[in-house]
């Protein structure tokens, strides 16, 4: 990675993190999603093809990563930008399953760093309350943005951009040392592939914990499963079937209400 590429990726890590300057809708929930993040990394590093090979599985793994009540389980922005970049830098010449394994490992490293930095910024933001209270006490409506946006963002930026540059710099330095694809033994690649494939179960399992509100909902989940395994529908076909079921369910409810 060139310095410019590292700066761009670190900048997007900051933008995609929770509470960045562009807002959570555009940042955390769009730029921070693995599907979008890997696409952006692909554009920056000039390898959209490889980026998307790992982007979709990473998105499945982290599909259940939501932030209920503001508790960040895993810093997705860090995880996927670092994960996709790791796959492109270190995965030259690997096949798809091995690439996904490499991306999963780097995403894990990135996610850990990200979670640490989130906790730090979360703590550093607390004194800003004193500042906000002073402006409020003065009735200064024109400066209420200072503690929230200016100071909050200064802390957020420092906590994301600088550690990201360090991690990316380390990756770049390591990648120039040797050709990793040929150095890594077969069994490590094989293990990473198995790990990557099984990690998807994490995203699905967590998502199920939000969705399985009643026991019998399990049958609906299995229905979606066998539509693929027995009926060989692709996911788009299943999504259409799912939409139809949702509409019918909603309509039956409204009809009952009218009657």
């Amino acid at each position, binding site marked *: 990675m060139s310095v410019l590429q590292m700066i761009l990726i670190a900048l997007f890590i900051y933008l995609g993190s*929770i*509470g960045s*300057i562009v*807002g*959570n*809708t555009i940042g955390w*929930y*769009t730029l921070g*999603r693995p*599907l*979008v993040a890997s*696409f952006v990394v692909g554009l920056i590093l000039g390898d*959209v093809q490889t980026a*998307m090979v790992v982007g*979709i599985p990473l*998105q499945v793994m982290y*599909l259940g*990563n939501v932030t209920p*009540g503001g508790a960040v*389980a895993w810093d997705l922005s860090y995880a996927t930008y670092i994960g996709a970049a790791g796959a492109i830098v270190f995965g030259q010449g690997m096949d798809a399953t091995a690439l996904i394994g490499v991306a999963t490992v780097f995403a894990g490293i990135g996610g850990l760093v990200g979670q640490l930095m989130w906790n730090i910024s979360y*703590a550093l933001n*607390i004194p*800003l*309350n004193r500042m*906000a*209270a002073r*402006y*409020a006490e*003065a*009735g200064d*409506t024109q400066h209420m943005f200072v503690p929230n*946006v200016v*100071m909050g963002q200064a802390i957020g930026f420092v906590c994301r951009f600088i550690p990201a540059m360090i991690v990316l710099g380390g990756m770049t330095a390591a990648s120039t040392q040797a050709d990793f694809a040929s150095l890594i033994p077969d*069994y490590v690649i094989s293990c990473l592939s198995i790990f990557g494939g099984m*990690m998807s*179960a*994490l995203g*699905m399992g967590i998502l*199920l914990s*939000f*969705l*399985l*509100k009643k026991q019998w*909902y399990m049958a*609906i*989940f*299995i229905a*979606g*499963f*066998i*539509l*693929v*395994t027995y009926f060989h529908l692709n*996911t*788009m076909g299943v*999504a259409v079937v*799912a939409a139809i079921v949702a509409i019918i*369910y*909603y309509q039956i*409810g409204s009809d009952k209400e009218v009657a």
Partner: protein
Amino acid sequence: MAIENPAIGPAIPKKISAEALKKSFWNWFFWNGCSQQAESMLGMAFGQAMAPIVDDLYDTREDKAAALKRHISLFNTEAQVGSICNGIVCGLEETNANGNCTPEVIESVKVALIGPTSAIGDSLWVGTIIPILLTICMTISQASVAWLGPLVYMVVYPVGTCLISWKLFQLGYKGGLDGMQSMMASGKLDRLTNAMVLMGLIVVGALTASFVSCTIPFGIIGDVVDAATGEVTQAVIFNASSMLDGFFPKLLPLLLTLFVYHLYAHKKWSPLAIMGLILVLAIVLTAIQYSTGYAAVAALV
């Protein structure tokens, strides 16, 4: 500015300008999470969002200070759906400025709004709508060119969310607390949530089948004699995974997913702990594969 007569109160009822409402919404939409912390959660962001409204409604420095102080206190919600809270509070401040509401009411309503709006936002919006939209975009990527999915998501999600968030803000301002209650009590919201959940479950089932992989690296390898040529070759004569697949395709990925669900939902394992367990499982499976010599032969077949 209305000329105030202390004896009869303001001559013209105060009204928040459309400009101030828009400004307030944008402050919230962009910067709701900027200074999140454990003490007041989104309090400072809420205070900033209310600043244009306060400026519009109150004239004296004391009144502005009192209003700002009540809005930098603890507040939390799922901010995108929670813009309805901002709308409701704007409406209440307007009523207060006209002398028909008290600061105590505003404060208690704000606190009361935290629970229901967070619940709806987290479960319906973040837990259901976003994963479904992401899934549809992943499908687009798989079915056509890879970059189309993220591109569609990057346009549809922010624009759609912004519009809905603004509609909810306006609904809160115009309909107030009654508007929100009637929406929640009508049963429509419940049905909509359940319909989305059913859709989500079917899609998650399909994703599980397509993406989760897990095999048992166990098989019996034996010499197979080719009847025609008499050549003896090594081959897998019994394969545990393909036997299981013959009886229920992808049974193992399904069981693994349900196991992770069980650990997360019922045993309260953290995602990090589950990740660790999966890594250990992957290492064990790899070790079995290599120690039995299955890997070498399986690669041939």
